[in-house]
Each structure stands twice: as C-alpha cells, then as structure tokens.
C-alpha cells in the first residue's frame, strides 16, 4: 500500500539494531487511515532495522485509553514508542515515565504536548494543510458564500490547529473576504455521527455553499450524505480524505477535489526517526538530520517537528493513480 | 360393592417433597363423572400440593395418576389442560396488566377475521360468563387493583369457560359473599348435571355439606378416608382431619390481665378498613378473626406502621405512636410476626444468626459496628429457647424446614423483648408438632404479661387460644366476643352475616369518608 516503500526497494537498516524494539500506538485500532499509516510504519521499522515491531492500542479513541498501553510498553522496556495522541496532555505523565525508563518517544499524526516527546512527525506543515483546504473550497464555491467545518473530535490536536489556520486565513486574506464560516461541528470520527452532523448542517444553514471536513471519516460520511440527497452538486465538499474511500464520490461528481499526504510515509519516517533517536544519532534538537530510508534525509525543525511532505490534491484525473 | 363408572380422574399414593419438606406423602383422590367431590383437611394438609399435581404444575415424586381410566404423566400445565382438567388455584393467578376479558381467555382467545384475536368476541364471551355467574365486572378494565373477591370470580369464570371434564377448585369461596357463593353453586351443579367431575376444596363445612356428593379427608400429607356426604357427620370429619383431641392442641392458660398495652381508636384507611377501635391488655390474647380478605392483615400492618392510615390513633402504653414508622413501633415495644415468612419474615439467604438478630441490629452495635459476639449470643439465646433445629447458626435459613423457619421468625421478634406482639397466621403451613409448640409459647408469653394480637384463619386456633375474639367483616369490626361467647357459629356469623344481607342494607348509615374522590363511571367499571 505504501507507494514510496514499494518502488525504492530500500536498503535494510544497520545490523546492530536488532535488539531494539519499536511499538506503534495509534489513536485507535481498526481504523482504515490508521492501518495505512501503520503499514508504512511497519515497513519503515523493518528497513530501519528494529528487531521487534509491535502495534497496540485501544479499540475506542478516548483521551485516557492510551495510557495503560504506554505503561505496558514502559514495563516491557520498549526502545521506541511511536504515538498518535488522542489528547495532548492525558498521555503526558505516562510518556514521561516511559522516557525516564529509557524509551524514546516519537509522536506522529497527532502531537502530544511538546515536552512529552522527542520529535513529532508531522504530515505536512500545518499551515499548508489549512491553506490547501480553504483554497480548494474557495475555488469550488466561486470565492463567496457560507461554509461550515465538520471536524473529528472537539479535542483533536491536529484538526484544531488546521481549523485555527483556516479561520485566520479567512480573516486575513482579502481573496476570502466574501466567505463566512458559519459553524464548526464535530462527528467524533464516527461514521454515523458525522453523517448526521452533515445532515443537520444543511438543514440549519439553508444557504450553505460548502463544507470542509479535515478528517477522513468526516469527509467520507458527508460525501455519502450529499451524494444521496438533493444537495448533491449544490453544496461543495472538500477536506482530507483517503482516495480509496472517496473514489466513488469523486466519480459521481459529489466531490471535485480533496487533499491528503501519503499516510504511509508518516509511519515510515516515524520509524526512522525512532531509530535515529535510539541510536543516539539525533536528540530531537532543531537542525538534527537523519536518513529516512528511501525518502532521503529529513531535518528536525523548530519544536522538534519533522515534516514529511507536501499534501497531494486528488481530483477525478489523478485519483486512480493512488491506492490507499 | 356395586359396579361403578370409571373415575374421570384418579390419583393414588402421590408424593411430593420440597427439599427436606414432604408436602404430600400419600395423595389419593378419585372423582367420578357427574360428581362434586370435596377435599378437606387442615392448613398444610397438602391439598393445594395435590391440586398442583393434578394441574401438571408439580411432577409427583411417586404415585399413580389416571384420567378417564388412562394412565397419564403430565409434564406441564398445558398437558393437564389438554387432558381436560381445569384448575382454580388457591392464590389468584391473574395478570395485573391484562384486561379482565383477556385474563379469562389467555392462550385461547377467540379468533376473528384473518385468524387474529377478536376483542369484540372476547368481550362478549366474558360478559356472557359474568352473566352466568350473576356478576358485573367490566371486561375491558385491567386486572390490577381488583378486589380479592373479584379476582376470585374471574378465576371461576376462567375455569368454567374451559368446559372441562374435571374442574378443580382450591378454596374458590374463601373471598366470596353469600350471594356469589350461591351463584357459584348453581353453576357447579349444572356442570355436574352435564357430567363433569368437580373437586371442591373449602374450609367451610356448610358449603361442603350443601354442595358435595363425597368427601375425602387428608391429614399431614396423607389420604385418610373418603365418605359419602349423606352418611357422615361434621364431627367425624373434624376428628379425622385433626386426628387428636383439640384440648391437647390448644394448651390455653387464662392469664391475669394487666394494664392496657395497646389502644387503637377510630383507625381508618379509605377503601381498606374503617372505624377500628380496640384494646389489648397485658397478659391477654386477642384474636382477630374473619374471612380471608376481611382486612385483618391491613389493620395489623397499619398499627405497626408498615402501611399508612388516614384516620385514628394508635397508642402503646398510653403514648401515641407515630404512623408509618415500624422502627418507632419496635422501639415502643411492638413486634410483628408477619403472615408470609418467606417474603416478609426472613431474609432467606442470610444465616440463622443474622436473621434472629436482625431486629436487634441497632442495639447490638457499639460505635456503629455490630458486635459479632453479642450478635451470636443474642441469636443463640432465643433460637435455643425455641429449640430451632439447625446444624449451625451459620446455615442460611432457607435450608430449614417451614416450622423451624417460623421459629426463627418468632425468635427474632421475641429477642426484642416486646410488650405487645402481633402474630399474623402464626402457624400457617407448619407441622402439627411445631404448631403445638407455638401454641404453648403463645400461652406462656401471655402468662408472662405480654399483650398479644393474633390473626388466624383457623377457627379452632382462634377459639382455642383467644381470651377475646374480634371478628372483622369487609374492613370493619363486626363483633367482639368473649372467650365464653366465641363459638364456631357466632364467629362465622359475624364474619359472614352482613354479607347475607342485601347491598343496600349494608350501606345504610355508612358515612362517606370526607374528601374522597368519587370516581366517575363506577357503575360501568365495577360489579
């Protein structure tokens, strides 16, 4: 599934790392997006030369449910813990304990508070993600009208950051002066709930021109609602989605364009960053660099953030080229 | 012996045990077609158990059972019904949420179009049945809240509507008034004429002798004898039922009376009882007699503070007692042995010791913690005095026999050293041996100066134990009789007398409780 890992035939990592172990703790198991990320992570971990790779995590994405998994990993003496935090603070104390027991902490996908981790592997520059979504939306609604945002959980770190940038951009950029953001709603990354929130939006705001959903579950559910309702083609939809999930809605015209990075790269880079931390090649300080397999060298930016790559825009033209 | 027709139903040597208790050791009865057959015996003789075996509800542990000459073995109630046996149980088995009509026809509702239940047909048939029984009950009201008498009538309607070969009636008349009983008899006789066999259970000998062709006597779970009614006397039947001299069973010692311990004046609760006034003195045993459903238990519960009352006062030793507060009653020196020991008297899963000390739990505690040693000692004292037979104080009471359970209930109340004791059916369903022990105890307690109010449905017990008898009828005290005045006739008359009058006569002079809502459409809803 990971385009990047497949075509490179990457080199196996250093031989001396086989006693190192890495564990991925996603927000929630059994989530398709997560599965793609973890697929990349496992490939990366193998190439980077970890002796043992594990994936553990809660079945429900709640703030505190990740803590006991971190605890168990601490006790198991895992060398690198890679985590996508459901809540930036709730996992903090547990991660501190893991660190003091010698583990290196890599946050990916969704950050923890910066003091609890060594590096954060970010999809893309947060602002870029925000900008591309508002840009796509503006194009589709002709630069004016009411829009709404349908997000994941109200506390999701990454979504909230993007939303913040979107709001700032709407205020500051004169191109978007005629666009008003009327409301933000939350589908909790639950298909049913997102579906009904989408429905409610359209009823409550009859003049709504478009919806931005910066979450894969939300955009798919909204697309499904729009495609089966009278609003199909009338209300624009964009955001971040998985090509495989969105394909039918792009084909039937419900959605004309949406964006995403390659999720597999996220896991892939996280594994290499973990290896570099464990080996002591980097400390997570700004300016540190490490080799991320076939993706080449990566640099740790301000606040310990590593950027993976630019987002891709998917349209009916290119969507068939991707399989994730 | 003349050749006889095949019995429609014949049961021989049926036995049934519940855990350690043998409820029925030799249940035997034969019912001929076109006969009304009485089954008599003391409380706990095993009559209802036998009925439940006929009904297929209990499977006998032993015995031989034939219907229409064919051996049968019922595994479920449905089997028995299918074999043409229709049963009225002693305790009403109505479904409170269903309508009256539906209660009658559950499981065999008349069907109308499309094979669906036809409510109209059901209503019509129910009305026809009630007409036959000469009563008016709205078939469309729910059964919840019906009086015991109405419930009983519905049970009867249900049973006769089955057109069964055998009709079994376990104390159907216990809650009925004279008119209703007469109606029931008319119906029973017509069923007999149509060739059905009827098994009739009653504690009222006048009914048994008026209605039945033959009488089977049971005692202590065993078949004793069967008589042709016209060839036997009440005396003989009673001797066979009791099997011993009454005097020996009721060792009454008249005690010297002391001060008034309990004074009840003008107690009333709308719709349940009214104008209840009486006194009980130290050393006195006052019996509260009456038919089942007369409201005796309700009065006792109100006195003890379990149920509320609207009017009147209760005084213990001259001090007025707060209503609706059993703890206050206990503190004032009252004790109450309730009628249903399984549900009201005991916590079946707790040990004998914990049960016996339950009433003392507050006084056994020091700094809020129960002193386990003191608890055990308190429990042991009374269970030993009453000779409760148990392997250990730590056994759950559910493992004891009924008689021993009743002794634990008595123990737990006597442990509070009460001045006034209410006994509601103190010997219901316990064996004769324990029964006489309980009677001796009652005498001893009265002798020691305790005031006792005893509710009993057993006339011999009432007559044998009481210094004074209060008879209740339809929620009022209809007679107060001295020990000398109290005979089976005077008590029964007071318990039923006014029911023999017509409704209007009963009503004259009855004041309406003030502030009572008059429900609209009552004549439609009720009889």
């Amino acid at each position, binding site marked *: 599934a990971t385009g990047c890992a497949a075509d490179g035939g990457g080199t196996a990592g250093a031989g001396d790392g086989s006693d190192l172990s890495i564990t991925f703790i996603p927000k929630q198991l059994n989530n398709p997006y997560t599965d793609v990320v973890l697929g990349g992570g496992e490939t990366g971990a193998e190439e980077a030369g970890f002796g043992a790779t594990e994936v553990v995590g809660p079945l429900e994405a709640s703030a505190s449910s990740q803590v006991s998994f971190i605890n168990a990993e601490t006790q198991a003496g895992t060398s690198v813990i890679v985590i996508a935090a459901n809540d930036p603070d709730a996992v903090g104390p547990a991660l501190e304990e893991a660190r003091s027991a010698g583990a290196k902490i890599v946050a990916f996908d969704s950050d923890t508070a910066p003091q609890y981790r060594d590096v954060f592997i970010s999809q893309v520059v947060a602002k870029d993600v925000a900008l591309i979504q508002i840009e796509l939306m503006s194009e589709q609604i002709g630069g004016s009208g009411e829009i709404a945002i349908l997000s994941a959980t109200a506390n999701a770190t990454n979504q909230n950051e993007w939303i913040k940038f979107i709001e700032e951009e709407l205020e500051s950029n004169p191109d978007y002066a005629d666009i008003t953001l009327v409301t933000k709603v939350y589908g909790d990354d639950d298909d049913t709930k997102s579906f009904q929130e989408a429905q409610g939006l359209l009823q409550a705001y009859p003049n709504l021109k478009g919806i931005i959903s910066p979450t894969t579950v939300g955009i798919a559910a909204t697309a499904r609602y729009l495609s089966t309702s009278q609003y199909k083609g009338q209300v624009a939809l964009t955001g971040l989605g998985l090509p495989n999930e969105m394909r039918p809605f792009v084909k039937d015209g419900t959605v004309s364009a949406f964006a995403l990075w390659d999720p597999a790269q996220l896991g892939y880079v996280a594994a290499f960053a973990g290896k570099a931390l464990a080996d002591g090649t980097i400390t997570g300080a700004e300016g540190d660099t490490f080799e991320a397999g076939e993706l080449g060298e990566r640099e740790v930016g301000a606040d310990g953030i590593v950027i993976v790559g630019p987002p891709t825009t998917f349209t009916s033209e290119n969507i068939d080229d991707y399989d994730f | 012996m003349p050749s006889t027709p095949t019995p429609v139903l014949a049961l021989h040597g049926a036995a049934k045990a519940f855990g*350690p208790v043998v409820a029925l050791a030799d249940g035997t009865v034969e019912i001929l077609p076109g006969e009304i057959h009485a089954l008599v015996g003391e409380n706990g003789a095993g009559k209802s158990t036998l009925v439940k075996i006929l009904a297929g509800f209990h499977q006998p542990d032993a*015995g031989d059972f034939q219907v229409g000459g064919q051996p049968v073995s019922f595994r479920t109630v449905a089997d028995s019904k299918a074999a043409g046996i229709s049963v009225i149980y002693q305790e009403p088995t109505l479904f409170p949420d269903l309508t009256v009509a539906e209660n009658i026809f559950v499981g065999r509702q008349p069907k109308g179009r499309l094979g669906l239940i036809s409510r109209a047909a059901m209503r019509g048939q129910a009305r026809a049945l009630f007409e036959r029984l000469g009563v008016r009950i709205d078939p469309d009201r729910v059964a919840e809240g019906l009086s015991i008498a109405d419930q009983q009538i519905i049970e009867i309607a249900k049973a006769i509507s089955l057109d069964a070969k055998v009709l079994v009636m376990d104390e159907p008349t216990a809650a009925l008034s004279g008119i209703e009983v007469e109606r029931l008899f008319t119906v029973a006789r017509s069923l007999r004429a149509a060739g059905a066999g009827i098994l009739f259970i009653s504690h009222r000998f006048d009914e048994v002798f008026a209605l039945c062709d033959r009488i089977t006597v049971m005692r202590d779970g065993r078949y004793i004898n069967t008589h042709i009614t016209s060839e036997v006397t009440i005396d003989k039947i009673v001797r066979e039922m009791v099997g011993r001299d009454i005097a020996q069973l009721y060792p009454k010692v008249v005690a010297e009376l002391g001060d008034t311990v309990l004074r009840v004046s003008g107690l009333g609760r709308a719709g349940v009882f009214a104008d209840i006034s009486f006194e009980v003195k130290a050393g006195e045993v006052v019996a509260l007699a009456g038919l089942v459903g007369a409201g005796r238990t309700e009065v006792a519960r109100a006195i003890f503070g379990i149920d509320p009352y609207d009017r009147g006062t209760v005084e213990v030793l001259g001090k007025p007692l707060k209503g609706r507060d059993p703890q206050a009653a206990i503190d004032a020196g009252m004790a109450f042995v309730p009628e249903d020991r399984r549900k009201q008297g005991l916590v079946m899963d707790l040990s004998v010791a914990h049960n016996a000390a339950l009433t003392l739990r507050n006084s056994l505690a020091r700094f809020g913690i129960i002193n386990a040693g003191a608890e055990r000692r308190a429990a042991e004292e009374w269970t030993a005095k009453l000779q409760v037979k148990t392997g250990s104080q730590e056994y759950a009471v559910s493992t004891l026999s009924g008689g021993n359970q009743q002794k634990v209930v008595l123990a737990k109340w006597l442990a509070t050293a009460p001045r006034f004791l209410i006994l509601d059916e103190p010997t219901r369903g316990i064996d004769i041996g324990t029964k006489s022990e309980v009677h001796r105890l009652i005498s001893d307690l009265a002798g020691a100066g305790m005031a006792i109010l005893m509710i009993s449905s057993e006339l011999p017990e009432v007559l044998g134990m009481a210094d004074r008898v209060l008879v209740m009828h339809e929620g009022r005290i209809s007679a107060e009789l001295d020990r000398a005045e109290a005979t089976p006739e005077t008590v029964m008359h007071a318990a039923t007398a006014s029911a023999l009058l017509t409704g209007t006569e009963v009503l004259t002079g009855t004041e309406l409780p003030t502030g009572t809502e008059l429900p609209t459409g009552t004549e439609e809803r009720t009889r």
Partner: protein
Amino acid sequence: MSNSLSTKTPERPTPALDTSTVLRAEATGRTGAARILLGRDAIMIYALLAFILYACLFIPRFASPVTIGFLGLDVIPVLLIAMPMTLIIITGEIDLSVASIVGLTSATMGVLWDAGMPIETVLVVSLLVGIVAGAFNGFLVAVVGLPSLAVTIGTLALFRGLALVVIGDNAVADFPPALTTFFTSKLGATGIPTIMIGVVIVAVVFGVLLHLTPFGRGLYALGFSKEAATFVGVKVARAKFWLYVGSGTVSALAGIYWTLRYSSARSDNASGLELTVIAAVLLGGVSIFGGKGSIPGVIAGVLLIGTINFALRLGRISDVILIIVTGTLLIISVVAPSIFSAVSRWRHNRRIRRSLPQASASGPPTPPHPA
C-alpha cells in the same frame, strides 16, 4: 409407609403427625472455616490468585513492583465506583449514571480551574456536584419510587449532557503539577500508588458499612425482600437515597482522580465505564436481583478483570481478547451456579424418589362410592 420416613428422623418427637418430615437429619450448610473457604467470594479470590500466579510465571516482566503501580492506577476508578455500586445492587437497584457523574465532575473541575478558582474550591465544588447528582438519582428512585434502571439511563444521558454543556469541547490540562504528580506517585519502592491509601479507606468504609453495621444488615434484608426489611424497621426510602448519594460522592472522587491522574478535564472522560463497573461487580458475586454479595468478592472481581487486562497488554494481546474474556467470565459466573444447583436438585429428587414408597406398594385405597 410412615415408618420408612420416620426411621430416618429418629430425633424428631412427633413424626407421625409431621407433614414437614425432614428426610435428612440436618439441613445441609457449611459452617465456620468451610463456609468462608468455599463461598462464592473465596472462589473469586482463588481465581484472582491463580491468575496472578500464572501471570508471574508465564508473562515476562509481570512479576515486578512496576506492575503493582500501573495496575493500581488503572483499576482505581472501577474499584472506587464498584464499592457503592455493590451496595446499590445488593439492595436490588442499579446505577448506570456513575460514569456520567465522573464526566460531569471532571468537566466542572476543568471549567472552575480554568476560571481561576483556587484548587481547594475547585475540588470541593466538584465533589458537591457529584453529591447533588447522586441525590438527584436518590430522590427519583427512593422518594418518587421510579425504577432505577430507567431513571439512571435517563440521568446517564442527562449528566453526560450537562458535562458537555459545562465544558463543551474544551479540555483543560494545566492543573497544578504538584497535585498531578501526587496522583501518580508511588509509596516509596513498593510501587503502590500513594492514592491507593485513599481508595483502601473508601473500600474499608463501604466494607464495614455493608458487613458490620446495622445499616448493612438492613441492606441485605432490603435486597432480599423490601417487605422483610420494612418489618424490621429498615427505612427503605432513606437507605436507598443515601446509597445513591454515596454513589454520586464516590463517582465524583473517581472523577477528580481521573482528571488529575490524566491531567485532562474533558466531558467524555470515563464514558462507557458504567458497564465495566457493573460487569466487575457481578463477576464479584453480587446478585443482580439483590440480597447477595460482598465487598471482598467484588474487590477480587475488579482486580481479576484489571489483572487480566494488564497481563494481556503486557503480552501485547489485543483488547479484543480482553472483551471476549470479560464477557465469557461474566456469563460463566452466573450460569455455573445455576447449573450446579440444577444438578444437585436433580440428584436430590432422585434420592427422594427412591426413598419414598411407590404407590403400587401401598395399594390404592378403595374409597366408597355413592350407591
């Protein structure tokens, strides 16, 4: 006929007149040590010990003080709430709103702290919120007399909804570090969380209340039969009311713990915890019909689920297995006793059938027939 019965009960004085002839000389039951060692609670405790032994031997790194620490911190909320829940279920009622009270308390803490109140005030007010929530349940169940299952499904939604109203989608995290570290600190090298002292106190209070006080005796009576309890002077409504207040209070304590342990106050904290608590309590031997159960059994039940949970995570076995194991244990724990009692009833009946005379042996009497 009567001989065959009475020979079995030689010590009874009046066998010939006795309907309730006892077949066996004495009722069966267990006394003293046997009663304690073979009871339902004891079985739970054995199961717990057996599992701990297994985990120590076969699950790498399980046998370490670190386990005690993490395990302790994990089970605290369930352990706390299980205490009042045990008492409530013993009286035959239920409280489904506990997890929502945790959420409401947490939300209240977040908002008040965020508004700049001193932490002492925040804690007191949050605790009061829990108490009021419990009293509200208690009022509806005990005073108005509504079915607790329905009431607490309603307040489950209501309290969680109020939590949302209070804090919305915010999360408050910046609680005083001294406090949050205290909540995860351990007692020296033992690995036992410091806060466990408080939990033990709560457990002891409820254990004593249930097993050693007049109030507790009354609760068993109440759970077995409301009537039986009323007759011995138990104030039914009052007892139930205070139990729900207790439940609200302890749920609030759990909410405070939750918020400070994870240093995160949110409206969705502990959502779904009610079923976990109830499952643990039932597993601990409390009968859903009331009247049966004990605090030691429940503690063993909570710890058993907690330990299995932790061991599975340590062995990196998916939570999927945990869910299935929890469900299966729960079913076995209620089905097994009923199978045992069915078997023993069947054996008892068979014995009775053998010991009772058969009808054919006694010969049917020939009652007179009307001429």
